[in-house]
């Protein structure tokens, strides 16, 4: 039985440079999942993390924050964007009850991605600081293993680093909605992959027919903080093709001692 709730996908990820993978996303997530081995381009990936974090983990490049090792890593301005365009791959199990839905959630990808799940393609549009939540109920294998591959693209304007360095390099990164320190600043050397990667949490979540989205809590305080009101709103999404009647409950509790709550 599958319970309501979230499972974080932060282990078991593999990654490979896109130019070294000859298979399509459909093939990777159906007939030809990645194989690891001496001849394979696939390596253990760091998720959440960046392409550079994965390369450091696998000792493909040295730790850029140790000594002057960063100088030995090729910059995306010199290598081209393809060099830091990477596939990420993982598997997960799902078992849904009738009327349950499975959502695949990304809390941050730098910068855009194409996603393949069991052979189905979805596009994750641009924007480093935006979340993506996909209802994948009709795509997942209800009793089996699901194959997920994500092709992550670097920022559109990674820029070049002038020989003299400088604040934000050649400033090209400012054309994108992204962190700007990655072209180097007075306190940090340029980040060679511009932080390309699945840089924040990936999760799957199971819900019933109705999903709670982004509740908002605000308090107002009166009479020298003696009288206080909590105002709460939330969005609710009905994923079915019929009207649903819901019972919506809010409760506020506080822990007085360990395992003793006041309601």
């Amino acid at each position: 039985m599958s319970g309501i709730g979230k499972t974080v996908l932060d282990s078991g990820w593999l990654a490979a440079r896109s130019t070294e993978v000859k298979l399509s996303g459909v093939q990777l997530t159906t007939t030809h999942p990645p194989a690891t081995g001496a001849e394979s381009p696939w390596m253990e990936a760091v998720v959440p993390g960046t392409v550079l974090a994965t390369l450091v983990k696998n000792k493909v490049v040295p730790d850029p924050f140790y000594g002057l090792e960063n100088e030995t890593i090729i910059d995306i301005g010199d290598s081209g964007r393809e060099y830091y365009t990477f596939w990420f791959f993982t598997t997960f199990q799902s078992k849904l009850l009738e009327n349950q839905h499975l959502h695949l959630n990304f809390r941050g990808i730098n910068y855009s991605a194409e996603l393949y799940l069991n052979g189905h393609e979805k596009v994750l549009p641009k924007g480093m600081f935006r979340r993506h939540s996909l209802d994948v109920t009709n795509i997942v294998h209800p009793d089996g293993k699901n194959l997920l591959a994500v092709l992550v693209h670097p920022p559109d304007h990674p820029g070049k680093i002038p020989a003299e360095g400088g604040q934000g390099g050649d400033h090209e990164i400012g054309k994108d909605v992204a962190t700007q320190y990655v072209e180097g600043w007075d306190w940090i050397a340029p980040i060679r992959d511009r932080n390309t990667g699945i840089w924040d949490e990936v999760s799957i979540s199971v819900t019933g027919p109705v999903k709670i989205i982004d509740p908002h809590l605000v308090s107002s305080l009166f009479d020298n903080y003696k009288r206080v009101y909590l105002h709460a709103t939330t969005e609710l999404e009905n994923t079915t093709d019929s009207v649903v009647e819901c019972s919506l409950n809010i409760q506020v509790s506080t822990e007085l001692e360990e395992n003793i709550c006041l309601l």
Partner: protein
Amino acid sequence: EHLQTQQVSIPAHGRVQHTFPQLFFYKPNLWWPNGMGKQSLYEVSITVDVKGHGESDFWSQPFGFRKIESYIDSATGGRLFKVNGQRIFIRGGNWILSDGLLRLSRERYRADIKFHADMNFNMIRCWGGGLTERPEFYHYCDIYGLLVWQEFWITGDVDGRGIPISNPNGPLDHDLFLLCARDTIKLLRNHPSLALWVGGNEQVPPDDLNKALKSYLKLHPLFQNSDPN
């Protein structure tokens, strides 16, 4: 008083916004910044049960009751802060991120933020050229009483100044910037440690972005000074 149940009908493939009746608290424990008192947190839980199906979704979040005010002092030109009516002397640290390769773990956030609290700081400023910090960062700021000054992704050096002079019009895609800004606000807005949003670092965002950000972050009239009763 601290429990409400309501019946809601949602159309097929519909998305509705629901507002609960306000919940009343008498003398709740307030959330205070580091050094001014306890960081009292209540657990707010929302559940939705669908008729004929059972539990459909669940959400919960620690929440602190506090009122943060800030204004520019005309005499000094500095920004003054008050928390729960009390003036606070801000002792802050500048923050970019906990790891340049974005291996962002809860453990590291906890250690870094506790360290700031142990240094007797009461504010962390998240610089506009870096990250909008993650919910785990804010969680530990809630726990350890660090107020957060959060900037959006604009800097002087890359958005209007610098050598050579950079483009003052910000990112190419203003709609995308605002989409990301709205999503980020929704992600972080419930944390009691979130004290101040700022458009950018040493630079005012382009006029259309600045106006839109101000509009998104405008306080609802209900929460200004009026008494609902």
